[in-house]
């Protein structure tokens, strides 16, 4: 469903060129949760933005369902849903108004949008806050609203950027359930997080990024065999400390 091939992205900072993403490739299938993992500054968000079409890669390409994104970025955006902890809400709009707005942006039919709002409200336990102003929501409620927003157009591909950041245990559980739900619905999910313990729980496959490079890619079993470690955190530390990465 998602195919990223040799993605490269450079930034110029104080006259110096910084390679944020260096020849990163991966694939994500339908009904699969792919974890793009790594510490802060590894290049996860930049990679996600390139997949989303918000950043133009300096080289490489991304295809969604076989169509290269640079050719028709508007069409491919209809197939993507983005949920990010950086996302905010509109303080003066109610939850319903905000969701209707995004339905409009994704060209979702008005009647269908209303139905979907009710469904998502039930699913994400938002029925009581639908007509509340977004400025009055708690962090957990805002996160649920953001999740609903990403699903308004029912995209086949979901991109989740640090979805549990800032959430407590209960809030995080909601997100995990949400991810399970997406997986059941056959969506291809690309999850970017630095919480390796959480990723271990929900992801089917992993791509470990460090300094913009893909250090390793595979399932949990593959990683265990390669590193001899049990937990993802230990595997990652071992991989980045290996002589090849020195």
């Amino acid at each position: 469903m998602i195919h990223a091939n040799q993605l490269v992205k450079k930034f110029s900072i104080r006259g110096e060129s910084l390679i944020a993403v260096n020849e990163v490739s991966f694939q994500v299938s339908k009904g699969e949760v792919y974890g793009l993992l790594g510490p802060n500054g590894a290049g996860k968000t930049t990679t996600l933005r390139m997949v989303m079409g918000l950043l133009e890669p300096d080289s490489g390409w991304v295809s969604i369902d076989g169509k290269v994104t640079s050719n028709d970025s508007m069409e491919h955006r209809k197939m993507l849903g983005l949920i990010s902890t950086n996302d905010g809400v509109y303080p003066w709009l109610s939850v319903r108004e905000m969701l209707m707005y995004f339905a409009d942006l994704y060209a979702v039919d008005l009647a269908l949008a209303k139905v979907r709002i009710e469904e998502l409200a039930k699913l994400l336990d938002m029925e009581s806050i639908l007509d509340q102003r977004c400025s009055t929501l708690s962090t957990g409620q805002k996160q649920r609203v953001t999740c609903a927003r990403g699903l308004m157009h029912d995209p086949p591909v979901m991109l989740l950027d640090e979805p549990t950041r800032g959430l407590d245990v209960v809030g995080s559980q909601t997100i995990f359930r949400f991810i399970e739900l997406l997986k059941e619905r056959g969506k291809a999910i690309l999850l970017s997080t630095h919480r390796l313990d959480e990723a271990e729980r929900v992801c089917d496959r992993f791509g470990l990024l460090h300094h913009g490079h893909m250090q390793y890619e595979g399932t949990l079993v593959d990683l265990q065999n390669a590193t001899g470690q049990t937990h993802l955190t230990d595997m990652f530390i071992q991989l980045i400390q290996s002589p090849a990465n020195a």
Partner: protein
Amino acid sequence: MCLKELRESLRDRRTVMTLILMPILVYPLLSMALQRLLIGSATSKQEEIYIIGIDDEKKQSRVDALLTEGQNLLNAGTISPIPPIEFLKKASVSGDLVKLGSSKEEKNENDQSSFDPRKFRLKWIEKPNLTFAVEQGLIDVAFTKLDLNVVSLRRGKTQSFDVEMQFRQGDARGESAAMMLRRMCQLINDQQYEALRQNIDSNFSPAVEMKTIGIGSSVDPTASIAAVIPLVLILMTITGAVYPAIDLTAGERERGTMEAMIATPAPRFALLLSKYIAVVTVAILTALANLSATWVTLSFGGLGQALLGPRGFSLWTLIQILPILVIFAAFFSSILLALCSFAKSFKEAQAYLIPVMLLSLAPGLVTLMPNVEFTTLYAVIPLLNVLLLSRDIMSGTPELVPSVVAVVTTIFYGAASLVVASNLFGSANSAMGSQATWSDLIRRPTKATASPDVGIFALYLAMLFPVLFVVSNLGTSITKDASLLMGLNAVALFVLFFALPMLWLMYHRVSLSNTFLITDGSEAGLSPSKRIARVACMFLAVLLLASSVWIYAVEGLLLFQSWSIAAQFPDLEKLKKDFMSIPFPWILLTQAIAPAVAEEFFFRGFALSAMKTKMNTVRAVTLTALLFGLFHVITGNVLSPEKFVPTFLLGIVLGATASLTRTIWPGIVLHFSHNALVLWFSRLEKDQLTRWFGESEHIPAIWIVAGGGIIIVGFALLFLASRLKPNT
């Protein structure tokens, strides 16, 4: 989409405060304060004593008689029992004179004048300073002539006053005194006519023939008030638009909603348009609220006629001003959006907008100055055109042509700003923050670079402007000799636009040959025959362009003269005389060679190379041409907006030449040729021009059309030269 933007804006308390509370609270308060001031000044007016200047002892008794008779008639409102001939006889009696500054200046019991001293006082002024005394406000009116003449009639003779009175125009006291005196004289004459009608005296001649001269500039006392009100309305409209513009653009980034919005398939222009509609709506609502509050305050508070004269601020005036404010709101909203789209936070957006708001005050101050007429030239200057149009509507004197030009250009500028905003809105460059700080622009880098950074260029440009202003004005203070001044300016140009930028770039370790396009790297690998062909094409192209571009510059000059803009520069003829006396080779050196070299290195070298690092060639050429045009608008301490269009177009030609040839030298030759031809043309006398152009004051249309064709051919050759590639 629009509904969401409007909801966000109108539900925000801060928008509502600016929109509603300000007009309904501030205007009535201002009105009450102003009323208090006017009452105070009216009270003091009642005790005003008008000072009349005279410079001749003989005039005193005559003025005495005139004032006494006139005042009696004014006060009584009926015909005086004294026939006019008696009044004239009294006028020939001499009396004491009170000199300015003397101990008798204040009226005392010994004063033999019989007119009411609470209204008028005489002052003696030394000849020939009467007019000067009026100009300086030492006196309110002056009788510069007050002769008692003998007038021959059909039957006999009679006497008559021949009066010339001066007052200062725009001065309320002077005008009031002159009006009262004119009225008095008219009453005296009316009395004469009434006497004739009643057959008291068959000799007919006006007892007073008065000529009134207003000196100084004619200023409508209500003009400045008529200009302040539109300025206030415009500023309030801007204030109304600022907050939603920031909130819907930079505010989205701050809240973290921008990315989710940009990630949708909705076209960026549609997103921006919905925000634009919301901002314009709030701006228009603010304008409407303020305009209504102003009308209510002036109409019902009683200030309308006091401030604006008899016409006041009518409903019809409001209806006329409203569409102007709407168009302005649409224009300024697009400017705000363009600026705010670039900002990543509220604070940054405010930092961008503050200079714009301050700049917006400048046209407002211009409109407050006396004798600023709303011409077609001013009609194309944004903001100034709207203010002047509104001022003229309030004064009741709008003219059709400048009004139409103002409306059309404002709409055009608004559309252009919207296009710019749509390019900036949500772009990656804006989304990712710049990591640079101010010290990065000054600190010497460790690595060399091929092209200069835009920041380095912008910093140099920012430092250049004040230095240029000081240097160009310093020249005129050092010498008035035109020839020497030209030399000094040429040296300054060379230093500021060539030498110092070179040092600045060397400090920043930027490649000079690459920046200034000194060597043509594209020649590498070309066969000798292709190289010759390339040079020949470039040479021919430059020849053709040089022979045609100057036509448009000269026509621009001729248009400038024919639009009577030249009449605003009375020293133009003197300038031309000085210009003709300078040897032409010196003029060529200082006005053609020096600018060609210095400006090409700066604009097509430094500026264009820096711009190309951030944008495509077309935009870079356009932006450098814009800078080039603006640079020529600023000459000394005077703005010359008429130079903008011709130099902007020349800048496009030169920029395109540099980009196509990838070297600076053809542009230097072209720039020199253009300047030389224009200078040579400027020195031609009218009879020489008549031989070529006939009686027309413009270049023949066939020349202009042919010139356009030659320019196209020239560019075609440049394009051909640029396509020559090495054999593979």
